[in-house]
């Protein structure tokens, strides 16, 4: 017998749960405190946005919402390495990356508040980004298509796409890895392993030891990082993005975290989550450890914390106000973006919808 191939999966963590660096030779960002403080603030923005979204939902002002509590370092971390002209193809719990790449908090609220204008991103940076793909794993394939267009045009851009660990059970995910490998596409696959696919624990999704190794079958570079360590997420994403932009092909990064919230506002995780998991999880969450690290380096204080929270909460509140004050679209909006040119028959239905709307 001959061994014809051998594989290994590397796991990277720089910052432990106590906010201590595990190496004397960390990536450059570990000493770039201005950058880390900005990322800390960006993670806090996502956490506070989720809190606000829950408050809006619980008071009947927002539809079902999927928070990303505990996973802020993943989306903020990888999207912070994206250039303006890189493209994000998000999944439904992807608000951290979306906001990092220019989507407004108001647009996030609009999407979950039942208004398509939440997908009409106004920020130039997000103009080519996909809206959330609700059917699980379909986004992985759209990302490969975007990357194929960039490749055919000879552009030095890349694509980031995120998926939950449960989503990696879908055929589309494997098909995307496969084609990205064959065509050497400039796409970075982020697996947000938050341990739960609604109520199904990570261990029931795969017999693999890691989700990262699913990429091995597609011939794609892959690795695991501590998804609660933004330094590790940032560093892995930075290298993968540079590789992708320069023709080096795709990478899969499995970011291990824990969902510290219910699946959505319509879920009650106490029905299935083991006792003690949340308590343990809150000790390892990403904001706490970065704050400890910044404090240990005399870069953060209670005063700065309060100033920062005031700033992000004002921003969120003004976005929430804009969302709540924005009148619903007129009924004809159902028709106005269906085709470049509306067919005659549908045009007649548009008249009917307008007449009905006028009576209400």
């Amino acid at each position, binding site marked *: 017998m001959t061994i014809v191939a051998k594989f290994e999966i590397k796991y990277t963590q720089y910052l432990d749960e106590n906010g201590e660096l595990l190496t004397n030779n960390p990536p450059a960002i570990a000493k770039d405190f201005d950058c880390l403080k900005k990322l800390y603030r960006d993670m806090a923005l996502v956490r506070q946005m989720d809190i606000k979204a829950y408050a809006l939902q619980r008071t009947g002002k927002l539809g079902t919402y999927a928070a990303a509590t505990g996973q802020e370092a993943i989306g903020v971390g990888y999207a912070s390495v994206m250039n303006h002209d890189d*493209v994000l*193809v998000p999944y439904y719990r992807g608000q951290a990356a979306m906001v990092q790449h220019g989507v407004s908090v108001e647009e996030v609220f609009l999407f979950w508040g039942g208004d*398509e*204008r939440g*997908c*009409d*991103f106004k920020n130039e940076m997000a*103009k*080519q980004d*996909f*809206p959330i*793909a*609700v*059917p699980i794993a*379909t986004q*992985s*394939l*759209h*990302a*490969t*298509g*975007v*990357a*194929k*267009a*960039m490749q*055919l045009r000879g552009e030095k851009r890349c694509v980031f796409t995120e998926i939950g660990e449960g989503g990696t059970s879908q*055929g*589309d995910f494997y*098909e*995307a890895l*496969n*084609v990205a490998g*064959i065509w050497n596409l400039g796409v970075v696959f982020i697996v947000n392993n938050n341990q739960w696919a609604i109520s199904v624990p990570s261990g029931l999704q795969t017999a693999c030891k890691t989700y990262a190794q699913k990429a091995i079958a597609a011939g794609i570079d892959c690795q695991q990082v501590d998804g609660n360590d933004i330094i590790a997420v940032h560093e892995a994403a930075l290298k993968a993005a540079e590789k992708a932009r320069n023709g080096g092909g795709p990478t899969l990064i499995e970011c291990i975290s824990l969902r510290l919230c219910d699946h959505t506002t319509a879920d009650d995780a106490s029905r299935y989550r083991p006792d003690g998991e949340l308590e343990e999880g809150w000790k390892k969450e990403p904001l706490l450890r970065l704050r400890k690290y910044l404090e240990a380096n005399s870069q953060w204080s209670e005063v700065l914390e309060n100033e920062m929270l005031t700033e992000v909460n004002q921003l969120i509140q003004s976005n929430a106000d804009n969302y709540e004050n924005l009148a619903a679209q007129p009924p004809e*909006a159902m028709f106005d*973006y*269906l*085709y*470049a040119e509306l*067919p*005659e*028959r*549908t045009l007649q239905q548009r008249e009917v919808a307008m007449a009905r709307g006028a009576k209400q």
Partner: protein
Amino acid sequence: MKAITLIEAVNMAMAYEMTQDKEVVVFGEDVGANGGVFRATDGLQEKFGEARVIDTPLAEAMIAGVAIGMAAQGMKPVAEIQFMGFIFPAADHIISHCARLRNRTRGRLTLPLVIRAPYGGGIHAPENHSESTEAIFAHIPGLKVVIPSNPSRAYGLMLAAIRDPDPVIFLEPKRVYRIEKHEIEDDGEDYPLGVCFVDREGTDITLISWGAMMHETRQAAEKLAALGVSAEVIDVATINPLDIATILDSVAKTGRVCIVQEAPKAGALGSEIAAEIAEKGIMNLLAPIGRVSGFDTVMPYYRLEKQFMPKVEHIVEEARRIVEYK
């Protein structure tokens, strides 16, 4: 100008548009060196290179998903699904994304893509290769679904499909791929989408069909003429969105209608056409609407497929019954 078949016309239209527009790329299973299992892409890779005529791995959802990503970047992908029977893994992308992206982004992202697929029975193909499931996509708002019935129409409609700013499902009636030839000028002139074509004018009855069944329907009109019945023949061509105005105009003239489809009868495009006529044109009707169709059965294996498909004599018989109705 040479006489070419329907499939050669599809090929000629793709080649014309690839020459004109560098953003047009063709991909699918076996479309490259092999030129497609039906030869729809024959010679395209030689002419335009491997970068623009791409053999994909064997995964239909991937083909549709990649087309969406490319089109969202402004390219114009023309993707092939080898047989319509295998389109269903891609249906999630076609229905849940192609049809919706312009609408859900309020026009920010649009998808100028074409997904081609041969469909229909009559060529003694294996299981899952012969169904007529076009109504599934005709039901989906946001899609355009186009079916050419002869070589000229295939050329003009394919050009229009590639140039259209919205996603077009282009279904090719494979039974008539090579059944007739037309002399077609390769001048890049397209045909309009979203309109029916009146193939033959008549006064006694309107025969409505699309795709391969147009072949039988045209023959039936000839036979009816010999019997003294003047049949108007309409090729629906674009089944979504449906040009009902042309159909209603014809019904107003003839007062009698026979719809001919290869697909099973229930919940099909013929049902929608009949309902529209009943809703908007019933006062012009001199006889109940008739339908000649496949049966509401699973498409049989090929030993029985001829028993499933409507034939010229069935159309003639039904048309005569409708014309004689008092």
